[in-house]
């Protein structure tokens, strides 16, 4: 079951950028692409745990700042010759607000 948590306005993340949400399961990176799509994935590169939220965002991919692994924001899979994946989380934008599905994050909204 989904448990949508209102995180922040879309504008609080720069286009082609990311911000971090702290959760019980670790940091989740929230990305906003050039065309205002949003994605949520673990903020930890499958290679050497680099903070993906600090990478350069291009198309729907991010390049890890540590060793240039390219991770798909849509699937969480490493691209090209690299192998590995991070968790992805359900996320959407409604009325300009970013909503994150808390169901897998160990968080509960105020009942």
């Amino acid at each position, binding site marked *: 079951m989904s448990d949508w*948590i209102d*995180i*922040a306005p879309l504008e*609080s*993340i*720069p*286009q*082609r*950028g990311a*911000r*971090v*949400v*702290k*959760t*019980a399961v670790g*940091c989740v990176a*929230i990305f906003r*692409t*050039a*065309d*205002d*799509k949003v994605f949520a994935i673990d903020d930890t590169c499958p290679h*050497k*745990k*680099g*903070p993906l939220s*600090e*990478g*350069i*965002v*291009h*198309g*729907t991919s991010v*390049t890890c*700042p*540590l060793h*240039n692994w*390219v991770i*798909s924001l*849509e*699937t969480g*899979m490493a691209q090209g010759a690299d192998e590995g994946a991070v968790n992805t989380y359900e996320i959407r934008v*409604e*009325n300009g607000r970013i909503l994150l599905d*808390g169901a897998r*994050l*160990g*968080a*509960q*909204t*105020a009942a």
Partner: protein
Amino acid sequence: MAQKLVIIGAGMASGKLLETLLDSHADAYDITLIGAEPRGNYNRIMLSPVLAGETDYQDIITHDTAWYKAHGITTRFGESVVKIDRKAKHIISANGATAYDKLVIATGSASFFIPVIGNDLPGVVGFRDLDDVEAMLAAAHTGGRAVVIGGGLLGLEAAAALHKQGMQVTVVHLMGHLMERQLDAAAGYLLQKELEARGIKVICKAQTNGIVGNGKVEAVLLEGDITLPAELVVMAAGIRPETRLATESGLHTERGIVVDDAMCTSDASIYALGECVEHDSVVYGLVAPLFDMAKVLAKTLLAEHAAFQAPMVSTKLKVTGVDLFSVGDFGEGDGREEIVFRDPGRGIYKRLILRDNRIVGIVMYGDTLDSGWFFDKLKSGEDISDTRETLIFGPAYQGGEAQDPLAVVAAMPMSAEICGCNGVCKGTIVEAIQAGATSLGAVKATTKASASCGSCAGLVEQVLAATLGDSFEMPVAAGICGCTDHSHEDIRRVIKSRALKTIPAVMQEMGWKTSCGCHICRPALNYYLICEYPLDYADDAQSRFVNERNHANIQKDGTYSVVPRMWGGMTTPAELRAIADAAEKYNVPTIHVTGGQRIDLLGVQRADLPEMWADLNAAGLVSGHAYSKGLRTVKTCVGTDHCRFGTQDSTGLGIKLEKMLWGSWTPHKVKLAVSGCPRNCAEATCKDLGVICVDSGYMVSVAGAAGMELKQTEALATVATEAEVMDLAVAFIQLYRESAAYLDRPYKWVAKVGLGWVIEQVVDDLENRAALKARFELSQSVYRKDPWAEQAKPEYQPRKWAALADLTLEAAE
């Protein structure tokens, strides 16, 4: 007796509903149409041409009084409905109660007035109805200045029309490019260029802070202390579904009035359609889906089954002379591929987005002739793998079977234009090839084809291949990354020669193959633009590597290292105390002395950076730029101050050089050193620029390396004064900034261009030396500042350094 049908709202959706309903079954209902506007139904889409003076109101009326009369519809225009009494099944207006059996709400939408101070001043208008248009025309009549807030479809149509009416128009748009909901950045750029060429000013990424005026509008204030004087302000930042009546009567509303597939609201006797409704979480603002709703609702009212389906909505901008088209999903993504066609010379951009060999999105600018053909393929979901190679060229090039691109080129008529920049057609190129120009370079030299923007180079090569057959060998592309076939040198040349001032502009004009580049090309483009246009170009933080975005060096565990600047390697007890205090306060686990005579504080948490910088700033310490492609350090020995061998004030000169050069961005990092005597304690002869002091003056040498490669510097010049050293150093760095490829250290660059050329430019040609210095100073007027002080400002805390949200706290509560 016929049932009573009451319709609230006489807009386009209800007009279409009436037509459809009466066509099928003229006597089904006794109809009353109530509208708040004091007039009947007109074609609202055509308000832009009315505003532009290209047509007038009479021509856009869709249903006049006679039509309503002929169809037996009771009309009550200029009357506002104030309440719906669902229990009694009647509505209340100034004329009292009107009973209904079935009620249709078609109240449309209102302009969204952005919530800033002054948004209610006289002279601030929306752009929804004829009253708005008349208000705008009245303002335009006296000329003057207009500011349009919102660079979407409506805003741009208003801007173009007001400009045509003789006003000076500025469009301010919150997002990074115009019409971002319909266009990608490249097409948005072309559109902006076109509007600017017409004299309409466009400001993107513009946050409106307020509207001011005494009794009427006088100016719009933007973030960044920008004031735009204006007599007219048009609010075109969006629309808001008009749901008040529905909400107050207890109907289910979200953003719009919620309807099911049959257009029925939460009350079985009440229906809604048009811009005021929300179907399946979507609110519609374009006319095609509204007409679909009207057809569905007509059937529903006649008790026939029909279901509204979310349609594919395409967009065209009604600005005379601007051709653009967009439809579908034009974002990038996994499993999505794109075919991009760009003809910079003619300002054409076409992009097809494919998934599983089917078109899912289309963006076209400049030439939209084939949009219908592509749109058909999108709607039908046709598998295009067989025609993929030539698909982008449109139906004219589609034979019965798949053709290879070479065949397409071979099939082009001799009069087909290959190079749009220089107007070179295929015939001219073929003649040149037959006359002996058998390489791209030779064709370029003899015909000028591909000599300007270079984006047709591939086409020229295909003409070569088609003409010469097997004797022509296709050269391998040497692009800077997978996004382009152009070299660093070509990119820099074109940025300069064509005055390209944004990343999307470069990508468009040079035919980028991706829509927003990658981690290799974007930082390079960002640097080239900073270097070429220090005053005009705004640094794009999102195109920077993490270290330059966060002004600290990321470490393998995600922590950062912080290195304060120590001018010329000099420090004081107070600075050391401040560094020690910061190290303790922020639990710095490791303190290291660098090879460049600085102190490195390693293991700092990201969240602590701004506070730590503020503490260091307070002690007079600034960023050491130990993370940048820019000036890192000027290493010195103590020279004549203390050393018994010193010949000159090497520390003093080092400090002067560092104060001159710090903050500048360069293609790669730059390190200097000044040694006070030939014993060379500062190791100046393996730096990018080194100075060795001697009794008679200063020996300046350049292009050393002590990294992956080891190389001694080479002599640039020997001069007598510190001032000359400074001039040479600045000129050398500026020449490097202007002509090196991104990520080439100076020694690599000098190896490419030749030391002789560098000496000519900075040593021999004094005029050029002065010009280089002047350009460097111009750039430094912007960049010679401490980024830490900027980044430590309180406003950066919530928007950059803090976490977006902390859900661990919520969970604990």
